[in-house]
């Protein structure tokens, strides 16, 4: 419970609580709207619901937008906690401090993707004259609310089960080599890199051809291979140490917080890559601008990662 004395944890949990309360209000409002909504009616009830719908959408928009900002703050919080928890050198040790950490992080990323989809649907709905996606966006919000509830419970469970006296593992122990090949599909580092660049080229080609389903699949694979490539290859050039394999240390000041940019561009690129297929599935409509955004963020991500390797080679004349 000592962990609740940390400023970052207090701010984070307080913000999460406020946002969760707002999301409950929005949930109740959304249920009421979905139950009694009738666009064709001219009753006082419908008129009241229409006014209320505007308020509820504003609350959802506010809540979900702040939830996006809270993810980097969560990363910042667990990184700061590494100073308090024995054994932890960065967020990797803190997130593994108990069984709730990794599922929570995974859930937060999934929710982020859902929120993005909701925001796009909402924007398309508000830009249209006849609010064509009005009901679907409220149903989708109810779906997201279930995840928000699980996330809030996990938030509390995770932070209340962090001990400041038990020793946790540092990132070298968690991501270090322990006999078996840690890279997925039994790939070597060279093969991992070849797949990384091939998948990048594939996302560009698929965006140019506007192939939503294939782009959805390839983007998910790119997320996985991108993550592994950063941990096992690009990260070592950021840290300038071949044995340092960690996805969290790059979020620290020593590395100019570049991790936020790297993970941010990867998540944005992948999100825009999968969004069009999900939009097609939910509202039978896609947004061509999302293909351009996928190309933009994936390219920034790949250039950023590759630059570290090239600059290291130019400066030192050797590869790690």
């Amino acid at each position, binding site marked *: 419970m000592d962990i609740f004395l940390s400023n970052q944890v207090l701010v984070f949990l307080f913000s999460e609580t406020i946002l969760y309360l707002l999301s409950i209000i929005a949930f109740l409002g959304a249920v009421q709207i979905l139950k009694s909504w009738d666009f064709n009616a001219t009753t006082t009830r419908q008129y009241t619901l229409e006014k209320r719908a505007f308020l509820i959408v504003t609350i959802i928009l506010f809540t979900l937008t702040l939830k996006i900002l809270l993810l980097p703050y969560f990363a910042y919080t667990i990184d700061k906690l590494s100073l308090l928890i024995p054994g932890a050198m960065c967020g990797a040790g803190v997130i593994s401090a108990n069984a709730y950490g990794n599922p929570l992080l995974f859930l937060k990323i999934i929710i982020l993707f859902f929120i993005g989809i909701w925001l796009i649907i909402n924007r398309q709905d508000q830009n249209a004259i006849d609010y064509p996606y009005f009901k679907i966006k409220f149903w989708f919000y109810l779906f997201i609310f279930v995840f928000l509830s699980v996330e809030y419970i996990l938030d509390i469970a995770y932070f209340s089960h962090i001990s400041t006296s038990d020793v946790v593992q540092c990132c070298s122990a968690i991501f270090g080599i322990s006999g*078996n090949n840690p890279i997925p599909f039994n790939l070597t580092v060279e093969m991992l890199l070849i797949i990384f660049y091939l998948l990048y080229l594939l996302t560009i080609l698929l965006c140019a*051809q506007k192939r939503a389903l294939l782009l959805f699949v390839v983007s998910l694979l790119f997320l996985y291979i991108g993550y592994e490539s950063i941990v096992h290859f690009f990260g070592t050039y950021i840290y300038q140490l071949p044995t340092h394999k960690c996805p969290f240390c790059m979020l620290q000041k020593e590395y100019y917080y570049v991790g936020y940019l790297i993970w941010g561009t990867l998540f944005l690129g992948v999100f825009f890559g999968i969004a069009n297929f999900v939009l097609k599935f939910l509202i039978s409509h896609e947004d061509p601008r999302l293909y351009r955004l996928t190309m933009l963020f994936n390219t920034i991500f790949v250039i950023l990662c590759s630059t570290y390797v090239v600059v290291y080679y130019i400066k030192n004349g050797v590869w790690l």
Partner: protein
Amino acid sequence: MKKLMPVLTIILIAAVAAIIFISLSKKEDMITIQKGNIQKLPLPIEPSHVNDTECKMVITDTTHACEVVAPNGNTWFFDDPGCMIKWLEDKPFKDKAVLWVKAFDSGKWIDARKAWYTQSDKTPMHYGFGAREVKKEGYIDFNEMRLKMLRGENLTDPRVRKKLLGY
């Protein structure tokens, strides 16, 4: 260019799939436990294919290798007698398990409980306990080796190293 793009896409997808399948087909999982050794015999260790259960290192050299065979035939592998002692200590079957160690003098697998141990061998984890089949002066028996290992009185302690090796 528009006609070329679908062809390029197919080629890239095929390349990614081919690399993944070829890599998967090469998959050789490290062995950490071998089941079904009911006869409780020492099993051959293929270098670089077996993990030490305690220190997790890949066993590349079997000169000081050890094996623990539980009553149900499960067999675990170690690269250093010290690792075996550390791992076995909290196991419920530690007194009933059959322990094999590679003897440095004869190169044979011998009963680790009947072996004699030097304290200054160059072993993979630098504990220093090397097994011998034939006793010579200065060698210690299994129980003494076990106690010294658990107390930390081995070459990893600078005082012990200074006393035994002089540096």
